[in-house]
């Protein structure tokens, strides 16, 4: 049902139009301040992750047992050498935050790419082939959706042994079904449209139909979904690392730093607070961008937005009229 709604709006949005509208897009981004801030934050995070060795004042793993649990610079015993203080081994918290962004973004990007690719392929197969293929894939998706995903992930992590690779695999295994479902229903809807039917009658080959006519229409809803999933994955990685089943030391991860910091919560508040804020800001930025994306990429949603504005204006007029 929800998927059917997605497909109808895709008809009105053509790929070429979108490219041409790039300028109006940036204008729109500027108008939606929240989305703009989100974009800026993500850009900053990306920069931070890429340029971590240049930005980080210290080696994130370098210990200094004599400078353990130093508070941030602005408090009485803090030093500017460690702007956000040090942890229980005297490691620089700021440097660990900067390097930690790499893990969060890398895991997020990898999982979204793997799960997204696999899910889209499965969705295309199901939607395009139909028949037996379709029902087998859909049964599979239904079955996996009904799995208690996280618990199963915990078992796999516990038995295979946690590492970044296992985290990526487990989260990908758990997350591809959404893409599959969405792609399939979009394919089904698009295939019934006149121009795709026409293309098929003319004798276009399957891959041409898929790549020329179907995928372009899927781009923006898939992108929105991928961004939302990205936010979910960042949180999931943090939670797994917090439980001790994700990234393992000596690697750094924000979730892991919260877990080690929680033992020191009454002596060194910054150890738990800083990585927690980093996770929150990252996820918030991604969420802001996602909600903005949904607005601009969904004509229905835009219509609604317009209607709401009008309704509010009307109501106000009514109120002042009295």
């Amino acid at each position, binding site marked *: 049902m929800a998927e059917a709604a997605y497909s109808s709006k895709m008809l009105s949005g053509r790929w070429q139009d979108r490219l041409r509208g790039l300028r109006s897009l940036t204008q729109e981004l500027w108008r939606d301040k929240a989305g703009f801030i989100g974009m800026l934050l993500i850009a900053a995070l990306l920069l931070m992750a890429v340029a971590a060795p240049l930005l980080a004042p210290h080696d994130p793993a370098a210990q200094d047992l004599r400078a353990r649990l130093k508070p941030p610079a602005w408090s009485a015993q803090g030093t500017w050498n460690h702007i956000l203080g040090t942890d229980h081994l005297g490691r620089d918290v700021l440097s660990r935050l900067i390097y930690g962004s790499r893990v969060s973004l890398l895991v997020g990007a990898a999982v979204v790419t793997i799960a997204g690719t696999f899910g889209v392929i499965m969705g295309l197969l199901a939607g395009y082939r139909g028949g037996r293929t379709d029902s087998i894939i859909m049964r599979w998706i239904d079955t996996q959706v009904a799995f*208690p995903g*996280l618990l199963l992930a915990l078992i796999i992590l516990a*038995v*295979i042994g946690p590492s970044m690779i296992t985290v990526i695999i487990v989260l990908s295994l758990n997350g591809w079904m959404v893409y599959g479902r969405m792609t399939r229903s979009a394919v089904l809807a698009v295939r019934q449209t006149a121009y795709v039917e026409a293309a098929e009658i003319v004798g276009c080959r399957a891959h041409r139909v898929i790549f020329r006519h179907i995928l372009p229409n899927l781009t923006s809803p898939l992108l929105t979904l991928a961004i939302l999933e990205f936010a979910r994955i960042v949180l999931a990685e943090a939670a797994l690392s917090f*439980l001790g089943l994700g990234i393992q030391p000596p690697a750094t991860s924000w*979730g892991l730093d919260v877990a080690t910091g929680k033992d020191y919560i009454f002596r060194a508040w910054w150890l738990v607070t800083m990585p927690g804020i980093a996770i929150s800001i990252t*996820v*918030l930025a991604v969420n802001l961008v996602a909600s903005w994306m949904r607005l601009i990429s969904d004509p229905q949603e835009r219509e609604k937005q317009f209607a709401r504005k009008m309704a509010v204006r009307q109501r106000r007029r009514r109120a002042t009229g009295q």
Partner: protein
Amino acid sequence: MGRYILRRLLHGIIVIFGVTIIVFVVTRMVGDPVKVMLPLEATLEQRAAFEKQLGLDRPIMVQFVEFMGDVARLDFGDSLWQHRPAMEIVFEKLPLTLVLTAVGIGLAFVLSIPLGIIAALRPGGVSDRSTVFVSLIGLSVPQFWLGLLFIVVFAVQLHWLPTSGTATIAHIILPGLTMALPVLARLVMIVRSSMIDELNQQYVQTGYAKGIPFLRVVGLHALRNASLPVATLVGWETIRAIAGYSVVVETVFAWPGLGLTAIQAIEREDLILLQAIVFSVAVLVVMINILMDIAYTLIDPRLRLA
């Protein structure tokens, strides 16, 4: 209707079967409980004897057949860690997880309706914008972190509420809130957007025009029509809470439910207990799924055809 439910049940059984097989394969193929269970100084003979006691020295197919038999009888054997039937432990811990889930989801549900409606009344207004923004923050804050902050502020600084345990109603407030907040954020968003849609519908406008009191229009008509997406989300969040959030929240608050027990079983490589927990949660998830499907068809009979 009957055939529909039967089909859903059959599908549920397939899911449970699948979970059971995966659990068996993963635990038998890769894990070695013997090493971890025995003390450091145990001799090689003691290790071999222990392996035999667990039945891990026999061919994998024999183990599998026996395992399926055990599952059918709901008897996974004794927990390696607690030395009593694993299912006994599950039945002991499950109610605590269910209570926590019920409180968390219930709280989120009860709060989300008024908040969502208030936001929807004036889309783009101050109350709407602030609700959306706070919800976005609620969605972005990691749950384990939120729980830790709650402990520091409400238990240690203010001494209002206990840090951990289950003895009184006061003990459930902090874990319940931690469980509720992300769910609340998502629910508020859904209530808000479906209410906005409904409030713009012709019938609501007609209702206004006919002079039906505002609250009645909202309460009776709009709310009822918005109930399908809300019910869907509540069902989903319940599943996610039982099979996911509970692990995190219970760990933070030392709430002795199934989630915390699962983590403890992992730490002790207690495969038998872990199998029992995952199996039970799978059954629970499947049951909730079926209940959700039935609830849909009650709310919206058109879905029966699907």
